[in-house]
């Protein structure tokens, strides 16, 4: 018989009656690999789809957009492109539906030309994608039509004009499903927009210019050579390549979270593999000793179990890959509302190959750690069951495995995060956690041995003594439970931070309706109308639009050409919407400087800025700020900085002028009110739209509801993904505690034999597990808080705000689960006669 076939045969025979013992091992691999394959598959498909669909999402080869019309000279440059042109104006507005006598907040998109040049507007009937381009015709979002029971041929009033609905719109170009639920899109043509009367000074309109160039024309090169020119303008010029980059960046957050889940599942899987193999080998120690006694060489004994674990590991990885393939088909369905493209639900071959190799390598490497211990199992165990294996000084093979694990983890994390630095930081965090946990457990053992209270009762003393008695598993359990807790809690803390950061303000007593675009002469009539509905006028704010022309002694053009500019482009280029008053509003706090009134002609003008805006512009108190107020140059100085509370949904202004300066400038008004119920809101909104078609009514309650719906979906997805890590974490916990089962079993049987009651055994075990659970979960949670702080601060760049109740809840749950699983493991001793248990364990 050849040596290898004998080893194979022995591996097979030995595993025959023990495969159930490897269920934990298999589960760890399956869950870890399934999460990895599913998440990577989804990510690769999303990226592939974004790259493929970028032209369709942009709808053109080049798009220029901004919140004011392009300056004529810039437009001239853009129009010099050898291209087919189109134009779009987009604004939020109110619409009126005569059929139901209801109003609806909409996103109005007025198009001129043959936009989109790439891809199609999804319309039903398909002819409507063209017919809305002439006359007073509209293509209306299908959800809006469904909601109001509209059919093609019905009418919808936008501003002053009644439009005929030509068809249903399947989805706006490049838009995300969840966003359209806030403001459904309506397409009309630009000529009709002019007659709606919605374009007023102060109307919030987004202007876009689209160009389709011949295939031979290099639009990237064209844009690159005019980069500086476009930089000084408030226009955002985007090509297909930019869109790809922007979309990939926009989804990097989702990508980051999903990667985090994959890393956590993988790391927990690793811990699960190592601890379950350790349990298995522990249960096999006597068999291994006997094989050694009968003449099996240490290397052969190692190979027998290595073959077993490799074959089962391979099976686990294959099942994991298959489970991942099935799971990845669910992810696009869960996330479809948040994606601008339809993601393929076919598994990505790259994700499968990666999942397979990563899964198999990790399984083998982490199994090797306990497996190499086989070489040290002495045949003397056959003579003395309590024999302690002699530790050799340095086990080079073990160190080589540590090295291989370190290298492979770096490579895998590098693959997952795309950053070698991040990979090193993750591995360093794992190492530090390991050292911390191992060190703490050693300290605990020493302290307990030295200071165990002598005056405590038998139960407590026995329970605590178990933690330092010979063959104790305190260190192993503390490291595995602690690491598992740390990884899992980090994920949960980060999840809550991510969710909190996207969650909005409470609805409570805040205003719930903002009316904007009000012309000054309409204000008194509108106030009358508001009062007739017994609604309060909470705020009445004048708004003047202007551009920033320069700051700190240099013009904007000079700054834009200056490579040392520290101001943010978005802040300098935006069309500033400014109000004037000499007070601080309830939502603001003056954090430095003061408010200085305007003394009349000849006096200097002092403005106050919001702190965020001042930081973005890199300006401070005393600095000069020059504005172009609709053609008039106005030099001002910063006298104070205001911190603006963003929890309130009313109007807020980054720039506030003193009264007396802008009073006569062209301006529009904003009115903020609060309606007590939906009926009043609906009636009031209808009356406003009818009497003042140019006024936009933003119903914050509906928006808040839609945003809440979106948030609920997001949190569901996050929780759904976290279940993977939770399941793997549970397996790690079970594996860790099963480790101690073998140690405690015989002791408990002996105690039972000499007369310990069931109650006493339960209390002894509960004391031990509660202490172990508290210490390992506590340390794990501590590590999680520190690591999530660093991830939040330096990787996510978010505010680290932790809510301690959930963390405490996690800790208490883990302690309870530890005790419950520990007790579950001892159920045989508690419920059965001692000899029966011994017989069962020996067989």
């Amino acid at each position, binding site marked *: *018989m*050849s*040596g290898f076939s*004998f080893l194979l*045969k*022995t591996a097979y*025979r*030995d*595993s*025959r*009656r*023990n495969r159930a013992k490897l269920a934990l091992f298999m589960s760890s691999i399956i869950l870890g690999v399934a999460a990895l394959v599913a998440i990577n598959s989804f990510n690769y498909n999303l990226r592939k789809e974004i790259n493929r669909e970028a032209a369709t999402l942009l709808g053109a080869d080049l798009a220029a957009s901004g919140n004011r019309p392009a300056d004529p000279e810039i437009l001239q440059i853009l129009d010099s492109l050898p291209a087919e042109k189109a134009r779009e104006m987009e604004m939020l507005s109110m619409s009126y539906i005569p059929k139901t006598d209801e109003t609806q907040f909409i996103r109005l998109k007025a198009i001129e030309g043959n936009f989109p040049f790439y891809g199609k507007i999804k319309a039903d009937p398909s002819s409507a994608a063209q017919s809305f381009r002439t006359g007073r015709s509209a293509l209306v979002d299908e959800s809006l039509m469904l909601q109001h029971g509209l059919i093609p041929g019905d009418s919808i009033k936008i501003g002053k004009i009644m439009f005929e609905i030509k068809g249903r719109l399947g989805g706006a170009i490049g838009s995300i499903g969840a966003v359209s639920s806030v403001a459904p899109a309506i397409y009309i043509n630009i000529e009709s927009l002019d007659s709606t009367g919605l374009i007023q000074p102060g109307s919030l309109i987004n202007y876009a210019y689209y160009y389709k160039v011949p295939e031979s024309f290099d639009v990237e090169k064209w844009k690159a050579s005019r980069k500086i020119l476009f930089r000084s303008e408030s226009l955002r010029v985007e090509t297909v390549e930019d869109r790809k980059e922007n979309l990939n960046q926009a989804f990097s957050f989702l990508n980051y979270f999903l990667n985090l889940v994959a890393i956590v599942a993988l790391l927990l899987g690793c811990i699960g593999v190592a601890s379950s193999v350790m349990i298995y080998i522990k249960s096999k120690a*006597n*068999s291994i000793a*006997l*094989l*050694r*006694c*009968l*003449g*099996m*060489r*240490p*290397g*052969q004994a190692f190979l027998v179990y290595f073959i077993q674990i490799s074959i089962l590991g391979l099976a686990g990885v294959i099942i994991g890959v298959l489970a991942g393939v099935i799971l990845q088909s669910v992810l696009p369905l869960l996330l479809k509302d948040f994606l601008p493209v339809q993601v393929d639900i076919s598994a990505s071959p790259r994700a499968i190959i990666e999942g397979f190799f990563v899964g198999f390598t990790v399984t083998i490497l982490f199994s090797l750690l306990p497996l190499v211990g086989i070489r040290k199992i*002495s*045949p*003397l165990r*056959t*003579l*003395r069951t309590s024999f302690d294996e002699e530790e050799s000084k340095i086990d080079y093979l073990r160190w080589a495995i540590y090295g291989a694990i370190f290298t492979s983890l770096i490579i895998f994390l590098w693959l997952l995060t795309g950053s070698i630095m991040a990979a090193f930081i993750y591995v360093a965090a794992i190492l530090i956690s390991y050292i911390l946990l191992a060190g703490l457990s050693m300290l605990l053992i020493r302290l307990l041995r030295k200071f165990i209270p002598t005056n405590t009762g038998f139960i407590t003393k026995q329970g605590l003594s178990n933690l330092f008695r010979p063959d104790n598993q305190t260190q192993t359990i503390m490291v595995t439970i602690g690491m598992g807790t740390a990884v899992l809690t980090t994920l949960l803390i980060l999840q809550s931070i991510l969710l909190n950061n996207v969650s909005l303000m409470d609805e409570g007593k805040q205003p719930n309706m903002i009316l904007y675009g009000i012309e000054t002469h309409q204000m008194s009539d509108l106030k009358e109308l508001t009062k007739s509905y017994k609604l309060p006028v909470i705020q009445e704010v004048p708004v003047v639009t202007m551009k920033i022309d320069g700051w700190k002694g240099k013009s904007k053009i000079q700054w834009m050409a200056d490579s040392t500019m520290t101001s943010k482009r978005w802040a300098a280029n935006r069309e500033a919407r400014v109000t004037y008053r000499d007070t601080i509003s309830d939502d603001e706090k003056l954090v430095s400087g003061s408010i200085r009134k305007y003394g009349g002609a000849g006096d200097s003008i002092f403005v106050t800025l919001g702190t965020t805006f001042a930081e973005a512009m890199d300006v401070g108190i005393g600095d000069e700020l020059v504005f172009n107020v609709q053609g008039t140059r106005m030099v001002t100085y910063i006298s104070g900085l205001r911190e603006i509370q963003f929890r309130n949904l009313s109007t807020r202004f980054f720039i506030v002028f003193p009264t007396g300066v802008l009073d006569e400038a062209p301006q529009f008004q904003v009115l903020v009110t609060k309606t007590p119920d939906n009926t009043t809101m609906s009636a009031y909104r209808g009356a406003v739209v009818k009497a003042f078609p140019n006024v936009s009514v933003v119903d914050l309650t509906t928006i808040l509801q839609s945003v809440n719906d979106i948030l609920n979906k997001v949190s569901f997805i996050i929780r759904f993904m976290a279940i993977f890590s939770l399941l793997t974490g549970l397996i790690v916990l079970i594996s860790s505690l099963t480790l101690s089962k073998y140690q405690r079993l015989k002791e408990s049987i002996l105690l039972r034999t000499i007369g310990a009651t069931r109650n006493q055994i339960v209390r002894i075990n509960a004391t031990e597990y509660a202490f172990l659970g508290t210490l390992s979960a506590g340390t794990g949670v501590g590590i999680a808080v520190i690591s999530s702080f660093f991830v939040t601060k330096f990787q996510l760049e978010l505010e680290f705000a932790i809510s301690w109740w959930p963390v405490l809840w996690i800790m208490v749950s883990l302690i309870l689960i530890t005790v419950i699983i520990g007790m579950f493991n001892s159920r045989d001793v508690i419920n059965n006669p001692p000899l029966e248990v011994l017989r069962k364990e*020996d*067989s």
Partner: protein
Amino acid sequence: MSLILKVEDLNMNYNSGGRPLSVLQSININIEEGETVAITGPSGSGKTTLMGLCAALDNPSSGEITLLGTKISPLNEDERAKLRNRYVGFIFQNFQLLPSLTAIENVMLPLELQGVSGAEKEAVQLLERVGLKDRVTHYPSQLSGGEQQRVALARAFINKPKILFADEPTGNLDGDTGANVESLMFDLNKDFGTTLIIVTHNPELASKTGRIIKLKSGQIVSDVKNILSNIAN
């Protein structure tokens, strides 16, 4: 007759709670081929330690053991394993069968380790010899204690060992079953011409061997030929 086991000035120390503990002191034994020897003594006298060292399962603190003309100390783990597999048999108090292997697979194991193919025939013959023809494919958990020890006997003899070490071979068995196993062991030993070394507390079992070595506190206190052994056997 030639020497099969030579123990010279053997000492074994352990560290117990940080203090050195001397388990065996200056042991000298010569055992010739074909001898049957019982090592007896009270608990803690060092019997099992001595057996483990003689069977190349452990390293002494000092002294030398020569088994079948080979000095054990210079051998590495693989060489010791080979030596055990080719020339040594074992019987343990708690039978030590592999629970996931059937009776025949347990018996075949030493030969399979040597790379011998077709060990089934020999294994079946030995199982027949120990009266377990009908239990060939049973797992240890499906066998009684006496039956398990008989499987262990078959396994111990399948590689035709030159020397057999038995650690309290009947210690876990009742009187009749123990007697049955004892007689099988001696019979097989005679048939195979094996040197037999038994570690036991049982004076009755020891009296069936040709030589009795008594240990006390890690030292040999008597080493006598048992002239009554032939009568007993």
